[in-house]
């Protein structure tokens, strides 16, 4: 079976990129608050896309297509990191509190509806006991 070294390298980079995206997706679901979730998503969007695009560049070789891919990669690198920075800043200015050590899971998360409801439910139960 004929296996080009280029194809192998492409596959390697694509696998790394997909792995980063998978890890980031798990992180977005599992992390406790907005800032840590964005931290996970930002990694995927910068490093993950870079790996995938590098893989595609290796696959297409030294052509105009790889030049365009390179431009796309650099653009996403710049824009995505800036966007992540401003998302964090906007959330901070809006008053989203960062998750601290000792907080329960989802305690400072305005979007985790079910877990917030659980926390409230526990508090009311505790009050009832008193």
């Amino acid at each position, binding site marked *: 079976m004929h296996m080009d070294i280029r194809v192998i390298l492409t596959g390697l980079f694509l696998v790394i990129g997909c792995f980063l995206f998978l890890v980031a997706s798990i992180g977005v679901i599992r992390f406790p608050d907005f800032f840590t979730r964005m931290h996970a998503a930002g990694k995927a969007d910068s490093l993950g896309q870079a790996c995938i695009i590098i893989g595609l560049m290796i696959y297409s070789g030294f052509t105009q297509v790889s030049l365009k891919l390179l431009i796309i990669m650099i*653009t996403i690198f710049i824009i995505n990191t*800036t966007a992540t920075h401003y998302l964090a*800043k906007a959330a*901070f*200015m*809006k008053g989203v509190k960062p998750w601290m050590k000792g907080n329960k899971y989802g305690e400072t998360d305005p979007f985790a509806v079910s877990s917030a409801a659980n926390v409230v439910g526990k508090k009311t139960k505790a009050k009832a006991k008193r």
Partner: protein
Amino acid sequence: MTDLAIPLFLVVCGIAVLLVKDLMSSIMIFSVYSLMMAIEWCRLNAVDVAITEAAVGAGISTVLFLVILGRTKSVDEGKKHINIPALLVALGVAAVLLYGTMDLPHLRDPNIAPNTHVVTPYYLENSYEHAGQLNVVASILAYFRGYDTLFETTVVATAGFCLILLLRVRNKKPGTLDSQKIGVTANKKTPASIGVKPTATFPDVLDQDKDIIKRTVTKLLIPFIQLFGLYVIVHGELGPGGGFQGGVILGVSIIVYSLVFGFDEAKKRMSVKTKDLLVSSGVLLYGGIGVIALFMGGNYLQYGVLLPDPQFASVVGIMGIEIGVGITVAAVMMTLFYETVRIDAND
């Protein structure tokens, strides 16, 4: 699989836009909807439409919605009630549209109307010979159907004029804008006013004027955005794109500048007067090329008579009208933004 996945996601997005209470989230979902729509257009090989959808639907309209949202409340406080007549009308329209889709051909059907119509082989065979265009879409838009595109551009320019007439006259009347002014001042919330104590570790985070990151990144990106816009306009004869798409991208570059550096700075770069002139000058360029063709002894918009070599003349003429379309569309996109933001500037 993707035949179904993207339309399903679109339907989910459409329902979510209606159900979400927070209007900000609603706008974001709508932006996602537009991006998915662009992917769908891409998949259907309509790359020109995809570029427009991504730039206008996901870009400019989101920004305009956010600007308008800044003047109102972002939470829908209305009671949940179902308006029965409105529901019936909506369902009726949906039923009619669904009935209409039954006449649409299947995806990848080779016997669709454009493939069997008598005029199609003529366009395909004569695109390069008459219009000098390798991209048949460009030759149909600019050469065989030049009148249609001229009137489309006129419609876009007319929309720009209507915006100017409707919104600018209202600005000059003092007293009518009090409620909006209150909305604007109420919107300028400092972190202290919303109950957040800035921590000592982030003093510069809250200082907008010292914010160097967005300024640097914008300065870095705007030349490339504009270059890409020009590329899309000029490259329209070979690849996807053309005056409409490139114009939108050029307009976006000014909007981005205005968003980051402020409306006053943007007016120094692109003054309101220049922009107003550009709206009409694009159409003038398009119509003017047609008139020049008349004077050279041809028909209106017959580019072949402009220069001795008819094929090269067509290429030049089509380039000219694409640039005209681009100027008008870019200026109208700026008008959309300028006239919406203008009340903020109190001028």
